[in-house]
């Protein structure tokens, strides 16, 4: 990634973070809930973008980590009182990370198309597990009756209000974006990109491409799990659709239309796609036609994603002014 794109990437992230911080002050009710959904999906997309971009690992199975974490909350939360936020979240994230470690350890041996299809198969396995195996209500799904609360020394902090819950989501997603940004720009990120670009050279430097990819995959799976946990807490409901391949594909679409080589790309992709959905849904019952057209248009016009496209466009504009 060149220095210019990197600078724009960072600026876009700062603008997004500031804009998102104003949400609870300028929006109300339903709008805050919708902003919460967007923020969660943006965090999920950033997590996926981290393996797809620098990692070069196109995963079509990340929804299984996301969905497993959501189910873990539904399965462990008490029926008639709020769950403990810290312990259930840690359990969900650990579960997602463990599944990602197993899936990654097996899948990363395959490359290219086989990797995509391998993660797809694992994803489907997860979907059918919760759909058919008789756990947590099969295809009917299961409920999380109370939103988890944070137990502090001086009392419990509830996230029942839309604004409070939004702040929880905001802080978590900022953390995820921060971790991804930091990993990308640390030695870890350089080795990961190096392994993607030239595996043999990386090996010659003494690094194991397999191991570094696996670590990236597990970190990304854990972050996807955190987002799945928040989704379950937000809606109070989990269903096998959370793990379906469509969910994995949609988040991949967000990553790709935004730009997988940047950290801010997946955020822009998630925001644009979900806003477009929301607007189109108000106009027509057949809003998916609009979403499909947007996706096809972006692929044809900006195959590397919107953020790199905008960056190039800005650069050309500036050069003309000089």
């Amino acid at each position, binding site marked *: 990634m060149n220095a210019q794109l990197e600078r724009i990437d960072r600026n876009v992230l700062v603008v997004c973070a500031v804009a998102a911080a104003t949400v609870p002050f300028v929006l109300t009710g339903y709008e805050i809930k919708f902003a919460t959904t967007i923020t969660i999906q943006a965090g999920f997309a950033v997590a996926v973008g981290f393996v797809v971009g620098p990692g070069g690992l*196109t995963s079509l199975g990340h929804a299984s980590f996301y969905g497993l974490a959501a189910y873990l909350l539904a399965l462990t939360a008490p029926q008639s009182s709020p769950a403990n936020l810290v312990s259930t979240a840690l359990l969900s994230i650990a579960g997602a990370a463990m599944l990602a470690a197993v899936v990654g350890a097996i899948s990363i041996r395959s490359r290219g*198309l*086989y990797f995509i299809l391998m993660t797809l198969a*694992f994803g489907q396995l997860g979907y*059918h597990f919760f759909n058919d195996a008789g756990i947590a209500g099969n295809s009917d799904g299961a409920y999380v009756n109370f939103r988890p609360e944070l137990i502090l020394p001086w009392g419990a902090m509830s996230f029942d209000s839309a604004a409070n819950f939004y702040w929880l989501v905001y802080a978590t997603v900022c953390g995820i974006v921060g971790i991804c940004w930091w990993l990308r720009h640390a030695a870890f990120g350089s080795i990961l990109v190096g392994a993607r670009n030239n595996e043999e050279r990386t090996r010659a430097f003494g690094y194991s491409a397999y191991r570094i990819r696996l670590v990236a995959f597990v970190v990304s799976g854990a972050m996807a799990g955190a987002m799945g946990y928040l989704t379950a807490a937000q809606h109070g409901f989990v269903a096998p659709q959370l793990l379906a391949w*469509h969910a994995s594909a949609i988040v991949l679409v967000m990553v790709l239309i935004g730009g997988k080589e940047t950290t801010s790309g997946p955020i822009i992709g998630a925001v644009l796609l979900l806003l477009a959905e929301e607007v189109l849904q108000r106009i027509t019952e057949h809003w998916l036609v609009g979403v*499909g057209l947007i*996706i*096809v248009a972006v692929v044809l016009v900006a195959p590397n994603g919107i953020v790199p496209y905008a960056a190039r466009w800005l650069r050309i504009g500036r050069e003309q002014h000089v």
Partner: protein
Amino acid sequence: MSPFFFFIQLLNAIQYALILYLVASGLTLLLGVMGVINLAHGAFYMVGAYLAFAVVQQFASFWLALPIGLVLGLLLGAALERFLLSRLEGADHLSQVLLSFGLILLINEGQRVIFGNDPHGIETPGVLAFSMPLSETFAYPAYRLFVCAIGVLFVATLWLVMAKTRIGMMLRASAENRDIARAMGVDANIAYVGVTAVGIACAVLAGVIAAPIASVYPGMGDQVLILSFVVIVLGGIGSLSGALAGSLLLGLVDSFGKQFLPNYAAFLVYAAMIAVLIVRPQGLVRGGGA
């Protein structure tokens, strides 16, 4: 278990496998020859099924749907390559994944606009609406035997074309090594348009033929798409004979799995795929040639 019951399950497995092969062979050709991941392949299968439904409604003739499906499939495939895929030349797999996912949304929603959300059944065409008696108690629907026959015919034709003709040779060469095939004078543009047209036509025809057996419903292509990918992975990307082996394996797992482990049939399919990939990360049959 009576031998007739076993025999019927076997026929079901073969018939299921052949329809799957019709879809998967197109998908694997696209993958092998062009390196294109077409997620919308299942959606074209659905187009075929709804086409059969519409033709039966309009003209009260199922047979008419076959030639219409063939022509429509060829045209759709050629247009897909000409106007969309060819623009992505040189881009990575991800652009194709994204593009074809966009197409799924467009096709699925287009179907809802035209036909609505209700599932539909199609009557078995009159001539074949009877059952072949196998014993005093067992009979097998003639239409399913007809599907088997078409499938076998298709397998034979495809094999002949790929193994014995000049076009087949060019396609095999492209699947083996795209760049060298090009350097040796394979006209990539013609080969690509041809392969996409034929590949999509296969999917549409599979949908037409399957329509009287499976009911016609929104999103019906999804299941077939994923299963076709399983078939391709089992067989090795780009390998037609591998895809045939994969289809038969999946047909057997599905039809016997549904009888003996009804809750876990879907599970078994993916478990089989993962098991194969663990042992052979590049597929059962070596990828590459046909």
